[in-house]
């Protein structure tokens, strides 16, 4: 029997994490593009990209180190809110955000760098605030790149396995997302059950890509 709570957990995790990743990635890219100090820029860029190149289990290891019972933030939450982050549902979101962040950040940064810097300066000489320039000029003119970053990050978050398993574990009905369910079913020898979850993942991923692609194509055509 397919466990519907798994699908629900996965959807919840992927949706909340893409929401967080989207804005984090956007503002991180903005900060880096604006940054004038070259060494710090290179260092931060490296840190932001790291989760993309490290094995997910290594990222999970670091996350445990920070959010685990004895980790800096983990301990803080236990002491002050009596809340254990590790092996709870929010941990799946943390893992998905950290793992999908570099994809959002990098493709947004690439898109921002393609925008003619004269446009931003024109906005400034016309008295537009930096905030308005960000949304109406920089963001609006990088939309295809930002959206494709969003698609990649969403897919990455939905498929997150390694870091999630390390930080959130594989607790049915709590932290078991679809990829973990596939793994658990296969490990238990239930290939047919695993197949059901696989179909669901493919279905969700396909719909997401279709929606976002449609949005970016429509937006793109409008100006040309």
């Amino acid at each position, binding site marked *: 029997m397919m466990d519907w709570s798994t699908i629900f957990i996965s959807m919840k995790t992927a949706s909340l994490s893409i929401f967080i990743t989207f804005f984090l990635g956007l503002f991180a890219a903005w900060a880096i593009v604006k940054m004038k100090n070259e060494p710090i820029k290179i260092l931060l860029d490296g840190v932001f990209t790291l989760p993309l190149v490290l094995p997910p289990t290594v990222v999970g290891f670091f996350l445990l180190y920070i959010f685990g019972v004895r980790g800096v933030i983990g301990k803080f939450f236990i002491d002050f809110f009596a809340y254990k982050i590790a092996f709870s549902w929010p941990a799946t979101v943390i893992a998905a955000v950290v793992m999908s962040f570099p994809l959002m950040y990098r493709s947004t940064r690439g898109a921002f760098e393609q925008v003619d810097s004269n446009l931003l300066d024109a906005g400034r000489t*016309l008295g537009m605030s930096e905030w308005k320039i960000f949304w109406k000029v920089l963001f609006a003119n990088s939309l295809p790149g930002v959206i494709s970053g969003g698609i990649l990050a969403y897919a990455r978050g939905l498929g997150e396995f390694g870091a999630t398993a390390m930080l959130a574990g594989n607790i049915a009905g709590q932290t078991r997302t679809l990829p973990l369910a596939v793994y658990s079913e296969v490990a238990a020898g239930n290939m047919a059950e695993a197949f059901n979850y696989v179909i669901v993942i493919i279905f969700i991923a396909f719909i997401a890509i279709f929606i976002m692609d449609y949005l970016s194509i429509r937006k793109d055509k409008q100006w040309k």
Partner: protein
Amino acid sequence: MTNKSLKVNIQKKLKEFDLEVDFELKKGCLGILGPSGCGKSMTLKSIAGIETPDRGIVSLTIDEENIYFDSNNKINLKPQKRNVGYLFQNYALFPNMTVEENVAIGLAKNHDEKRVAEMIKRFHLEGLEKRYPRQLSGGQQQRVALARILAYGPDVILLDEPFSALDAFLKEQLRIELVNLLNDFDGFSILVTHDRDEAFQFCDEMLILDEGKIIAKGDTYELFANPKKVQVARLTGCKNISRIEIIDDFHVKSLEWGITFEVSEKVQSNITHIGIRAHDFYPADKGDVNSFDTLNSEKLERPFEWDVSLANGLWWKCDKEIHDHELVIPEYLKVNPKNIILLEK
């Protein structure tokens, strides 16, 4: 009469050279002429506040002095606070906004709709309000960019090579429109260009910039007629320039062309070069003052002009009719002594 002036005195270290620009504008339009990469755009950007100079002052006085930048007092107003309009070389229209939206973008949220309509009308953009910049011709794009700047109501307009992105065909009409616009404009304007014709057409006052330094400034007619320096002569389009040896008070020998010329003005000891504009040669008879032979010349035809390259290294340009395809090069050419420009290095 209100008391108006735009003061610019800035220094900035650049990769290739140091930029040092110092001028004060009391009225109207200033042209900055210089080769590409001489620091012209950097000067404009420093006035607009897009770039920050290392040292110096930028201030605009309209009755009251308004300091934009002062390195000594650590003042550096943001571009948003300077009220300076900037026409970018590529116009920098926002591609995601319509013509109307572009024009209105610099206005306050609750702006008067009439202001946009007025600008659209003034720049002949009626019917194009809902178009996107990509759907416009180069000339229309320039008009939208100007409408956007003027809607904002700036005190200073900076024009960065405004015609470099346009076809020759469009340029002339737009130049007339822009000259008229600047004449009507009540504030200051600065036009930056590498095209001597543009500088000549637009501005009464001119500044010539080379490798970040001002090498000449003053009245436009005066600078073209009497460039004084080799570099200035070259930038104002003097085709023939040669080093010289001074023979006596009124005679010099060109070292490049091997000809001795009589000049109309007493040659001072600081004169090292002479310049002769390619249009200033006329057919001559043997033995005329300042004449020379034209053996082994080569010619190149343009629609309304012949370019003749003489064996001695001089260039001669002479006007022609469009149907006329034959040029018999006279055996001798001469130049009037008063058309020989005395130059110093």
